[in-house]
């Protein structure tokens, strides 16, 4: 009769090692699994507790916000209005300063037209007793407004010189 069971001492030792290894590995896995579960349970408990605390804080703060709603509305309206005012002041052209720039000695401005558009265009008519003065006036305006100037110089019937200027671009 042939005996198929491992009966040798080596086979027994190998089987015992395998049993020991499997048992140890299983225990490690089980302990690890239990630890992970415990960790997750702890985390879940912590999150639940923390959520309750934070929710209570949010509720309290929301209630305080309700009491301070008027202050918030006033402050935000202020901010909105400040932005509008700033925008208005930034884009506004100082026409009083422009008029002041147009005035010059020996030259009388008779006509002035300014229209708010892009690029800004100004039409100026000035008279003076000397053509040279008017030429200098035109050059001066070109420099001060940093703009292009189209000029037409003419002699009037009353003997006065007249210059028509069109100032385009630049900053009035």
């Amino acid at each position, binding site marked *: 009769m042939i005996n198929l069971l491992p009966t040798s001492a080596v086979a027994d030792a190998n089987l015992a090692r395998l*049993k020991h290894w*499997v*048992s140890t*590995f*299983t225990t490690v*896995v*089980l302990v690890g*699994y239990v630890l992970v*579960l415990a960790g*997750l349970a702890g*985390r*879940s408990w912590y*999150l*639940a507790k*923390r*959520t309750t605390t*934070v*929710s209570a*804080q*949010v509720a309290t*703060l*929301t209630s*305080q*916000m309700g009491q*301070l*709603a*008027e*202050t*918030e*509305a*006033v*402050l*935000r*309206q*202020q*901010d*909105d*209005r*400040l932005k*509008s*005012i700033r925008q*208005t*002041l930034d884009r*506004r052209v*100082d*026409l*009083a300063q422009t*008029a*002041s720039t*147009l*005035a010059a000695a020996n030259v*009388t*401005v*008779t*006509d*002035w*037209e*300014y*229209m*708010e558009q892009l690029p800004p265009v100004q039409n100026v008519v000035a008279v003076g007793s000397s053509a040279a003065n008017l030429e200098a006036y035109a050059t001066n305006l070109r420099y001060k407004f940093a703009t292009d100037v189209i000029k037409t110089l003419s002699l009037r019937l009353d003997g006065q010189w007249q210059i028509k200027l069109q100032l385009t671009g630049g900053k009035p």
Partner: protein
Amino acid sequence: MKVWSWVVYPLAVVVVVLVSANILFGNLGLWDKLSASQTQLKKQAEMATQLRAKVSRLQSADLVTEHQNLDYLIQILPPDKNLPVLLAQIQQAASVSGAVFESFRGKVGEVTASQSGTVADALQLQVTLQITDLGQLQRALAYLESSLPLLQVKQVRMTGTRVDLVVEGLWSSLAHLPAGVEYAVPDTSADLAQIRGQLKNYSTLPVSEIPSETGVNSTPFQ
């Protein structure tokens, strides 16, 4: 049979792990719940932080002072069109400069504002002044441009002693500001101080010149 009994322990562990893991993370969705509650907590914590900052900022503000500040800003940029005040400003400018306020015409359109408070129309007047020289016009413009409520001279047409001005009274309706935790409460003190500094030399109409709303047709134009 006794020979294989050592396999029972690892098999039992494998079965317990698989079954319990399937129940916990599969059927009960423990992992999803944990993730969801973590996300929820993060959101709540962020909201609490924002609310705390807002409450702290609001508690430090004095409501009476802030109302006064808003009133000042409304004086600079009114929330609605005020034709009588604009006319009074122009009359005052003419008076101060020595010009003669000859006539005016204009159009007051419908007041419409979008949700963001953007002004859809304007209060514009075409004004005719009689002047003696450019200096007088310059003084009138200087008064208008340093006058409160803010206005803007859009067009100047001076022909000899006659000046046609297009003057726009600036206004901006009170904005419809949405409520919500995510909207921070701005610190306006620095901007307010800057505007106060910039406009400190601006003049307001003398009290006697401020027209009463009573009996005034605020929309005389069609």
